[in-house]
């Protein structure tokens, strides 16, 4: 029993429980870093890397087979492509709605367009920057998770042979 579990790359119940507890926390922290990308240090890539490390935590604790059943590489790829797509579409919107490619067309608009003053940090500021950060975050979470998942899968196949 124990040996079988080890062979599948699983770790002990303690590690699994802690990983299961930490996974949502890591995702929330990742989301926090992404959402506050325009206000504090961090942003899409950093937050996305934290989110992907949450997935890595699951892979380490539960084994790649188990994780792959729950979240497939294809899903991550779609998520990643969506992120890239949102980024480019927002950038092109800048061209059509405002002056140039990547222009901040939401700035000074009612909802997101507030420009924060000294010491203020409202979340709904920065125009298109939060949207771009979210797009980058999606792309990084999807891309890095897919990379780690695939690397884990193919190195596991190699060991089985």
């Amino acid at each position: 029993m124990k040996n079988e579990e080890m062979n599948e790359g699983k770790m002990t119940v303690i590690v699994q429980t802690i990983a299961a507890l930490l996974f949502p926390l890591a995702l929330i922290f990742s989301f926090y870093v992404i959402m506050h990308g325009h206000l504090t240090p961090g942003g899409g890539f950093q937050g996305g890397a934290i989110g992907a490390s949450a997935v890595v935590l699951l892979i380490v604790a539960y084994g790649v087979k188990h994780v792959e059943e729950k979240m497939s590489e294809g899903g991550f790829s779609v998520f990643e492509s969506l992120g890239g797509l949102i980024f480019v579409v927002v950038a092109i919107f800048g061209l059509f709605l405002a002056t140039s490619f990547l222009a901040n067309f939401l700035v000074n608009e009612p909802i997101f367009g507030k420009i924060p003053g000294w010491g203020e940090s409202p979340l709904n500021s920065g125009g298109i920057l939060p949207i771009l950060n979210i797009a980058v975050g999606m792309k990084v979470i999807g891309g890095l998770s897919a990379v780690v998942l695939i690397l884990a899968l193919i190195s596991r196949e190699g060991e089985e042979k």
Partner: protein
Amino acid sequence: MIYNLPFLTVVALIAIGMYAIIFKRNLIKIAVGITILESGVNLFLITLGYREGGVAPIFTNLPPGISPDQIPEKMVLPVPQALTLTSIVIGVAVLALILSFTINIYRKYGTLDAGKIRRLKE
């Protein structure tokens, strides 16, 4: 002298990285060498951006004890940091690619020795 220390570290990192890439035969070590080389270059960019007494250019999160009037002189231009971040992102992608190639080579050839896998000679 103390201010030159980061630059000396940069030189050392680049030298170690180049040494690993040129003289090591193990593919994983070559990947590590590229990463060290990249860290050297990144450290160089970051060192260029360092200003003594500078403040991070975040308008919404001022450090205590600094009034907004002083800010324009104290805030550093974040371009080198932005360059470094971009370079780190690219480095991650390159490293992932090199590692996946390495895994595929190990599966096909059964070795990581760069000297033994040279099927494409001449």
